[in-house]
């Protein structure tokens, strides 16, 4: 009997599941609900239903994404791996020559270097504490001009004229967009400007790890064609297409990790318990700090 592995990617903005059976891939997707465990269970149910496999047949589950650490699936062995490793692993599984991954998610953008022989991460850079250059930026702007992010991407491809959105801060960029609208700039040109603004910031991350081909674009924003075009324009790199919707890369990577099994479990060396040795010191410090 072939082994069956599940990868779950419980992100802050959407949950994805992958069932891997002898190279065959089943997918499931749903919004991340209030309760992460329920979301995970629902994804598994959907995967089982789609594949006609029983729950008891599952060999191993690996979770990734924001909700990864709080999941439990009873008898089925469960481990967790960060989304950074899983994205790399998933992209590598689909396209073994990948060396650089650009991942744009809701709140984080990442540039990841991958070892093409193992699919393991060798370097990564994330955005600093600023949301410029993330999917959130696109989402806010799209909302403010009454479009979905996908529509924003589509329409940007029709741009014929270069206009600029320069503000780093999403909130001020939004007012920039409003003023471009007031100047009668077309939606297409504004959309292109917005994508270019995000691409420039992501390009800065990429230039810190160094960009090597093949480059793959993953994460929630990777479906956006305007974003891809803007990234290609900024980085001058060629992006390869994955054979699977790239937003599943994390879940797929998790499923691959599940198949590698042991890699996924953390051995945590517990810290020494609170020791008497420090008790009196703490009291002295407490005295000086509280009542001077």
């Amino acid at each position, binding site marked *: 009997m072939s082994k069956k592995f599940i990868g779950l990617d419980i992100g802050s903005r959407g949950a994805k599941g992958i069932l891997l059976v002898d190279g065959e891939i089943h997918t499931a997707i749903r919004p991340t609900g209030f309760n992460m465990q329920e979301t995970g269970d629902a994804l598994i149910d959907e995967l089982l239903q789609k594949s006609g496999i029983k729950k008891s047949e599952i060999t191993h589950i690996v979770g990734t994404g924001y909700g990864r*650490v709080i999941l439990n699936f009873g008898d089925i062995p469960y481990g967790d*791996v960060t989304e950074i490793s899983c994205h790399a692993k998933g992209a590598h599984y689909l396209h073994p020559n990948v060396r650089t991954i650009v991942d744009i998610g809701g709140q984080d953008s990442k540039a990841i270097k991958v070892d093409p022989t193992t699919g393991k991460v*060798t*370097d*990564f*850079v994330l955005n600093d504490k600023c949301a410029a250059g993330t999917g959130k930026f696109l989402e806010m702007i799209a909302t403010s001009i009454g479009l979905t992010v996908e529509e924003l991407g589509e329409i940007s491809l029709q741009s014929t004229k270069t206009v600029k959105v320069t503000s780093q801060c999403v909130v001020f960029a939004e007012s920039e967009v409003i003023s471009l609208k007031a100047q009668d700039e077309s939606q297409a040109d504004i959309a292109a400007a917005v994508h270019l603004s995000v691409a420039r910031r992501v390009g800065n991350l990429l230039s810190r790890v160094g960009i090597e081909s093949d480059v793959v674009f993953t994460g929630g924003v990777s479906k956006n064609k305007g974003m891809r075009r803007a990234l290609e324009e900024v980085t001058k790199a060629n992006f390869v297409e994955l054979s699977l919707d790239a937003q599943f890369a994390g879940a797929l990577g998790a499923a691959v990790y599940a198949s590698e099994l042991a890699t996924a479990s953390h051995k945590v060396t517990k810290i020494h318990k609170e020791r008497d040795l420090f008790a009196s010191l703490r009291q002295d410090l407490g005295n000086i700090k509280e009542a001077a």
Partner: protein
Amino acid sequence: MTQEVVTDKPKRAGYFCIYTPIELITAAGATPIRLFKGGDADTVSSGEVHTRSSFCQFAQHSVGAFREGDPLYTSIDKIYHFNTCDQMKKAVEAIGEFFDVPYQMLCLPREKSRESSRAFMRREVEVFRNDVEGLTGNLVTDERLSEEIVKHNRARLWLKKISELRKRDEPPISGGEFLELVKAFYYLPVEKNLEQFEHFFRHLSAQEDTGERPLRIMISGGIIADGDNRLVDLLEKELGARIVVEDHCTGLRPFYYPISEDKTPLDALSDGYLDTAPCARMKPLTERLDFSEKLAQEYRVDAIVYVSLKFCSCYSISLNSFVKRFQGVGIPVLDISADYSESDLGQLRTRVGAFFELIKKGEKSASTKAA
């Protein structure tokens, strides 16, 4: 042997930066208190009234603690500030202006290799001495000063020796615990610390091994304030790594080099503080990188977590050179941009988690940056 008249309540001299020669404060009969609390978002928000949203949260917290009437802070009689970064300098000016705390600014030259810098530092130390004498009314004699240098050297040495226990495969003291001893150095009388540190050293050095060899981490970068425990707890309590050495100003770094006991005391202090293990604002940057590398090698660290507060110019930009250096040495570096908000624990966990996954895969030559 001491000549000053001890009043009932000694004056309290507050300072932010470890380039302040505290021996002069104790020799004048005042109590030095390092002001390095941080980590509370409400205090930050209060301090922002007198600073700006683009000040680092340590600077905002420092102002906020005065505004909120923190008893330790409001007990300070005078602040001495050796020219640190722009934001802390401006924070001190704001504290002086809006909370009527007297302060004295002193200039710390950056290019310590120039003879002119050294002479200038010597003059600033004199200005400092004269000022603390004015604060307490006690003259600082060379004799008293030499005594204080010896005492503080001994306290620093104990801390260094305790830290060195962490060179063992299984460190008998965690990084979190070491920071508590550091707090004692900055908050408690040196005489008391001398007793306690010796006691700690004997106790910890006798601790038996259980045979574990946890992942060895060096923390490098900007200040880890008293109260800012998230990263240390995540690394040690949640992920089971051990911080074996700190390359920052609230960990081992300031205790690494002693003050000379052979020179005349003012020269010793002036040279000694100028030559302390350098922070990122000092020039040349290579000297700072050399020291970081020395520490990392000495403590045989597996990886480095480099922390800088959001809006900190000095530590955020020197990161690039830091990463370059350790790429050469083959020690991976994770870059964390931090503040005191509570929003990013999940992000922090992912970044540190992915970094650990990368290290454990034996990719020792990889350097990883994330913020």
